[in-house]
C-alpha cells in the first residue's frame, strides 16, 4: 500500500497539479458515463423521445428565421437560413454547457458529500452532455446546407477549429461559474438573461460584416464574435476563416480555461462545506 493520502487544513491555493491530473484522468470514464446517463434518461417520458434532440434546434432556428425575416421586411433566403442555423446550433451548445455547468456543482451536493473525487469532472461532464446533444444537429445542418444550395468545399473542415475553441471556452466558463455560483447563488438567475443578450450581440442573427460604427467594439469585446464568425465563414461560406478571428478566439478560449480551472481548483476543497 504505497498510496498514502494526507489531508491537512485548507489554505486556499492550488492542489498539487500532477496527482490531480492523474486522478482526473483515471475518472474520465465516469464523466463520460454521467453524461451518457443524462442523455439516456432526459427524454424518456416524452412521446417523441430522443427525436427531440434534433427537433428542438430545428424549431428554434425556424423561429429566429421568421423573426429576422419580419424585422428586415423580406424573406431571408437560403443563405440566411443556413447562417442562422449554423450559428444558433453552436450558440445553444455553448449556452446550455455554460448554464448547466454553472449548476453542476450545486446540483450534485449528494455526490460531493459522500464521495471523494475531483470536482472538475462535474462541469466537464455537463459540457460533454451539451456537446453530445449538439452533434445530431450537425446532421440537420448538413441537409439544410445542401438543400439551400450552399457551397460544399474542403475549406468547410476549418470549422473544426472554432468548434473546438468554443468547447474549450465553454468548459472554462462552466468551471468558473460553477464555483462562483456556490458563493453567490444569484449567478444562475442572471444567466438566462445574460445568454439572451449574448446571443443578440453575437453574429448569429446577423453577419459579422454587418457590425460597424459604434458597434465595432463587439469584434474584440465579445469572445463569441470571432468564434462564431469564423465558424460561419468556414461552414456556411466554405472559406478559410480570417486569421485574426482564429487567433482572438483561441486567446479567449485559453484565458477562460485557465481562469476557470484556477477558480475551481483553488476553492474545490472547500466545496463540501459550502453546499
Amino acid at each position, binding site marked *: 500500500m504505497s*498510496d498514502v493520502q494526507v*489531508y491537512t487544513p*485548507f489554505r486556499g491555493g492550488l492542489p498539487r497539479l500532477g496527482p490531480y491530473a492523474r486522478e482526473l484522468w483515471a475518472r474520465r470514464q465516469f464523466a463520460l458515463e454521467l453524461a451518457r446517463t443524462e442523455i439516456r434518461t432526459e427524454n424518456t417520458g416524452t412521446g417523441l423521445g430522443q427525436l427531440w434532440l434534433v427537433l428542438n434546434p430545428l424549431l428554434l432556428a425556424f423561429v429566429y428565421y421568421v423573426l429576422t425575416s419580419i424585422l428586415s421586411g423580406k424573406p431571408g433566403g437560403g443563405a440566411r437560413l443556413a447562417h442562422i442555423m449554423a450559428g444558433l446550433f453552436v450558440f445553444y451548445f455553448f449556452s446550455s454547457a455554460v448554464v448547466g455547468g454553472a449548476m453542476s456543482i450545486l446540483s450534485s451536493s449528494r455526490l460531493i458529500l*459522500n464521495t471523494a473525487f475531483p470536482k472538475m469532472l462535474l462541469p466537464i461532464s455537463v459540457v460533454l452532455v451539451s456537446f453530445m446533444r449538439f452533434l445530431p444537429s450537425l446532421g440537420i445542418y448538413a441537409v439544410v446546407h445542401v438543400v439551400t444550395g450552399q457551397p460544399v468545399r474542403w475549406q468547410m473542415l476549418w470549422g473544426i477549429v472554432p468548434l473546438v475553441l468554443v468547447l474549450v471556452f465553454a468548459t472554462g466558463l462552466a468551471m468558473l461559474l460553477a464555483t462562483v455560483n456556490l458563493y453567490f447563488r444569484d449567478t444562475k438567475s442572471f444567466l438566462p438573461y445574460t445568454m439572451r443578450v449574448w446571443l443578440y450581440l453575437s453574429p448569429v442573427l446577423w453577419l459579422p460584416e454587418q457590425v460597424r460604427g459604434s458597434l465595432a467594439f463587439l469584434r474584440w469585446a465579445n469572445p463569441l464574435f470571432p468564434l462564431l464568425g469564423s465558424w460561419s465563414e468556414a461552414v456556411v461560406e466554405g472559406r478559410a476563416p480570417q486569421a485574426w478571428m482564429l487567433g482572438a478566439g483561441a486567446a479567449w478560449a485559453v484565458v477562460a480555461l485557465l481562469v476557470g480551472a484556477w477558480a475551481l481548483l483553488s476553492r474545490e476543497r472547500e466545496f463540501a462545506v459550502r453546499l
Partner: protein
Amino acid sequence: MSSLSASEAFLGVPPVEIPAPLSVRVEDLHVTYRASLERRPTVARRLRRLGRGERVVREVHALRGVSFDVLQGQVVGVVGANGAGKSTLMRALAGILPPTQGRIEVHGRVSTLLALGVGFNAKLTGRQNVTLGGLAAGLDREEIARRYAEIADFAELGEDFMDMPMLTYSSGMYARLAFSVAVHMEPDILIVDEALSTGDARFKEKSFARMQELCAQARTIFLVSHGLSTITQLCTEAMWIDKGALVERGDPAKVVSAYRRFLKVGATAVTQEDV
C-alpha cells in the same frame, strides 16, 4: 496472558509483537463548519448585511481535537449520539471534508458507503447503476465488468431486476445493491455509515460475513452504527464520540457498556437491534 509471555516477563524481556502496518492516523483533528444562517448566500443579502455591519456566519465545531491511530485489519465501531460528529469524522477520513486543524494520514484506497446509492440514477437499470457506481468509486470499466457477476450474486436481486430501472426497487433492494457495490470495490479501507439497517436479517448476516472476509484480507473497516450489538459482534475495537471529542476507545464491549451507561439505557431489544 499465556505462560509464554509470563516466562518472558520473568526473564526481563518484554514480549515482542510486530505491529500491523498503519492504516489511518488522525492527529488533533478539528472540523468546523461555517454555517451561514442565510439559506441562500446572495449578493443582495451580503450588501444589506455589509450596510448594517453584521455577521451571520455561525461556526459549528463538529470535531474538537480527535487523535487516534488504526492499524490494518481492524474493524472499528464508532458510536455516539446523533450530532456527535460521527459522520463528520467519516467524511474527513474519506477526504470529503477538509480538516480545519490537524492532520489525517490515510494509507490505501478508501471506499465509502456513507449514504445509500450515491451516484446511482433511479431511472437506470440495476446493471447500468453498477457501472456508474463503480466508475464513481474510481474503478475502470474492465474492472467493473470483471466484478459484475459477483456484485449481482451478492445482492441477490435476480437477473430480472438487474435489468429493470431502479425506480421499481424497494428500498431494501436498493440498499442491497448499493452495499454490494461498495464492498466489492476491494477497498483498503471501507467506511460504512448506518447502512446495515436496511436489508433483511439474512442479508444482514451476509453483510457481516463479507465484512469479516474483508478484514481477514487486512482491510480496515470503520463502521458507524446505532445498533450496539452489531458493534460488539463485528468490531475489534470501538470508539465513542461525544460533542466532537473522542470519549473512550478500546474493547468494543467496554466502550459500548460505557456508552450505554451514558445514555442511561439498558441492553434492551431496541438498542441491540439496528432499527
